[in-house]
């Protein structure tokens, strides 16, 4: 990866040129030579990597889907097909003599860059977890991505933070860990509610007088709402960094409001966006300015989720990533299943002036777009919107929704637990009305006990709470 202070101020055409070079190099020197899966794909589709001149030709290459990556029932080692083979020692060339002084030194691939070092999995929110192999080279990149994220967030070694991201062998936990270790800030790696439970996390925040809290949005809001119940203080809290789950602006606003309500010193809220397939995550300098990507590591395209056509700047579409500078598991045009509602922009950030491409808007999950059967035929239901709507409400503590099918017709069942002091009947009525207005789906609203909702959504059981249950036998 490049020097960040230089890269983050590089003009867009220079970034594009650098990406072209990295891309063709990756294609010709890595994928075509030592990538078992793409080598086969290129042969199958009759693709000559030498004829791909740059990123403008990327549209001729096929997409990689999550199902391509998954381990097979009878072949658990199938994902190894996406891992670069270790080059032989013979490929490592000696230092070029003579004219190399005037040109770039080409030492050839170093086998140690390709040797397996560690394994992280995708979060497996929507299915089976996929293994991603990291070599030393990738670990250096992950640490660099962590340092850049902290630079964008403005976190330094003087900060003290509680990392409440759920522990899993995932890039998002480890990037956050390496950010703190490499920066040298004080951090308690709690492992999240699943490991320590809410009471201990809040107690640690109070005892350590930690100004920074790093956590998934839903758990953050719930934690701040229950702070009083446990009798802890968050008066030293200044900043919350949201990540690992859907964090629309409504969640940012709600977190701010909650921080204010618990008497936090300041109410700064920032966001991180991790993609397991990108083997790293990106930060946003301030809410709504977009996630600042690392263009020397990953090339991002935004495509139409159906047709696969590449979309223009700022258009809503699916995030597709291509590795430009990775080893271990390497992916080309991988469809992530994430929809960036504000697309991709390449003009400099109006807030921090960094020039790297930014992914804008909320990151919706494609898996949460449902087609429901109603009396009037098929109806589109975007459960991301429902999550947004529920997050914005001050009278809802926890909730989940089920999609059920009854005699061929689908309906939505919304189960809620209101915040203390909320009149249940009024809440249910208001929700029914709002649902009717926002979604043309037959819906029922009911209330449930706190324990029932906590257990159902797996608040401290899964990496992030599960809020939408599709009970239809499709």
């Amino acid at each position, binding site marked *: 990866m490049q020097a960040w202070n230089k890269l983050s101020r590089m003009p867009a055409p220079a970034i594009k040129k650098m990406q072209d070079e990295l891309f063709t190099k990756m294609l010709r020197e890595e994928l075509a030579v030592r990538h078992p899966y793409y080598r086969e794909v290129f042969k199958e589709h009759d693709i000559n990597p030498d004829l791909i001149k740059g990123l403008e030709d990327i549209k001729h290459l096929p997409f990689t889907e999550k199902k391509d990556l998954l381990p097979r029932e009878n072949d*658990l080692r199938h*994902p190894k097909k996406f891992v670069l083979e270790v080059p032989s020692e013979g490929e490592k060339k000696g230092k070029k003599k003579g004219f190399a002084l005037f040109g770039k030194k080409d030492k050839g691939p170093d086998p140690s860059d390709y040797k397996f070092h*560690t*394994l992280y999995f995708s979060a497996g929110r929507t299915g089976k977890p996929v293994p991603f192999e990291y070599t030393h080279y990738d670990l250096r990149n992950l640490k660099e991505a962590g340092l850049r994220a902290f630079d964008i967030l403005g976190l330094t*070694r003087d900060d003290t933070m509680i990392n409440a991201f759920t522990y899993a062998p995932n890039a998002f936990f480890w990037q956050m860990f390496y950010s703190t270790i490499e920066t040298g800030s*004080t951090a308690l*790696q709690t*492992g999240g509610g699943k*490991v320590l439970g809410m009471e201990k996390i809040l107690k640690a925040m109070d*005892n350590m007088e930690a100004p920074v809290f790093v956590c998934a949005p839903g758990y953050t809001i719930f934690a701040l709402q229950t702070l009083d119940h446990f009798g802890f203080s968050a008066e030293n809290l200044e900043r919350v960094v949201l990540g690992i789950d859907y964090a629309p602006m409504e969640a940012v606003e709600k977190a701010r409001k909650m921080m204010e309500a618990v008497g936090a010193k300041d109410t700064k809220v920032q966001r991180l966006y991790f993609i397991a397939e990108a083997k790293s995550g990106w930060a946003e300098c301030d809410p709504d300015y977009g996630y600042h990507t690392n263009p020397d590591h990953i090339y991002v395209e935004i495509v139409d989720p159906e047709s696969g056509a590449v979309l223009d700047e700022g258009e809503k579409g699916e995030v597709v990533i291509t590795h430009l500078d990775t080893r271990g598991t390497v992916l080309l045009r991988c469809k992530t299943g994430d929809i960036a509602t504000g697309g991709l922009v390449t003009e400099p950030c109006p807030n921090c002036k960094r020039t790297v491409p930014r992914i804008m808007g909320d990151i919706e999950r494609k898996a949460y777009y449902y087609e429901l059967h109603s009396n009037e035929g098929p109806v589109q239901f975007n459960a991301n919107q429902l999550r947004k709507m529920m997050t914005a409400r001050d009278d809802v503590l926890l909730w989940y929704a089920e999609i059920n099918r009854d005699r061929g017709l689908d309906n939505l069942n919304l189960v809620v637990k209101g915040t203390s002091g909320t009149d249940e009947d009024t809440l249910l009525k208001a929700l029914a009305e709002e649902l009717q207005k926002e979604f043309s789906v037959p819906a029922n609203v009911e209330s449930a006990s706190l324990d029932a909702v906590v257990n159902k959504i797996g608040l401290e059981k899964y990496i992030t709470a599960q809020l939408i249950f599709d009970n239809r036998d499709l």
Partner: protein
Amino acid sequence: MEKWEKLSRMPYKQIKELQDKKLRAFMANQIYLYSPYYSNLLKELKIDPLKIKSIDDLRHLPFTYKWDIAPTDEEPQKAKDFIIRPDEEVTEKYGHLAKMSMTSGKAAVEEKIYDFKPVHIHFTTGRTAMPTPFVYSKRDLDHIREAGYRLLDVFEVTTDDIVVNCFPFAPHLAFWQTFFAGEKMDVANFHSGGGKIVGTKNLMDAFEYLRPTVAVFIPGYCYYFLREAVKQGRDFSSIKKIFFGGERVPPGLKDKIKELFKQLGAEEVMVLATYGMTEAKVAWPECPSHEEYHGYHLYPDLEIFETVDPESGESVGEGEEGEIVYTSIDWRGTAVLRYRTGDIAKGGLMLEPCPNCGRTVPRISSNIQRKSELKEFSMTKVKGTLINLNNFFPLMMGHPDIEEWQVEMRKRNDDPYDMDEIYLYVAPKENVDREKLAADLKQKVLRDTEVSLTDIIFKTVPEVVSQLGMETELKEKRILDNRPN
């Protein structure tokens, strides 16, 4: 820190000189100046820190007990006083660093102070006391990395190995010592977070995907994991070594584990043990041997181990049974002096070179009555007799007819004033004569723990596994004290 290759071959005399020197410097330059708890204590007891010149002078210092450090509701910040920290509060009184700013400038002082800044935290897992934080500075992280390197060196792990860390993820020493060891040794790894985090099936899949050569486990979970793997016909033939931590490993369990690995295709798996404690901020390796126990190799440039009579507190001789007392001599962050661990080393402390590997660093006997989760009530008053619950472990873990087990203490009729009762839940192996097993267990439990069981209740393996919380708890609940207070 010293270079391990040199330190581990140094004659003991030289090691002791090194320890004395480090102790002197640590007392005068760190503890007395920057440790709020100890500097107050030394003043209160009128102990001149400069008079602590060697290991032999340690006896002039009082012991530190768990309750001196553990936070309470009244004093939640107690543990903070054990952190070596030249921050404003402390340096106001001892402004040595402030003077530095006159010669080297403010930036130099800031850098110096940053060296002490806690960056990483572990908690104790105690049940009777509140979890106590032990913090690491950046310099301390280099120490835990080096300790990990030494551990892997003793275990003869190389950069060709692939290590799977199956310790449950938590801000606890076991998981992180394994992580930092891998980092320093630069060995390929997978830090799974254990069955609770990734699920037992996914963990098995990861084994088959990665084909690791080394796995690191808590013994109880390992035994369960391997039995499940055998049932599913998994292939773990790549495994060469397995390390345990977190609990004692009874010899009988070692045999069972080896046998299970054989069924999974791995012949001659080396079963290795570690001993660690949050208070010492590192873990130590047992010298690898298939037959004999040669003790755990210590790191004499980081700590001093003493063994004392648990009653009188007097030092016991070399090789004599005694309670392990731990003293830090080269740490920042949290540091404790003469900490009473509550762990009894049956074979005491050994100072002669290891007969197995020839390393010269002091060793602590392999036979340690571990505190782990049981120590807090290990000498619990049940039926008016003090019983040592530790003794259930070798007996039950090593019993050839038992798959899983749990001990539960209750009060008769759940009445706090009534008699104590002690129940043993047992999931026997298939085709075992239950009557015979029950009679055998009653007699052996009486022999080893001096208590008569109220009853033995036979259950299925899944029932006991679920009672133990094998896949849901950080550590399985092997001994339950359900007596109302």
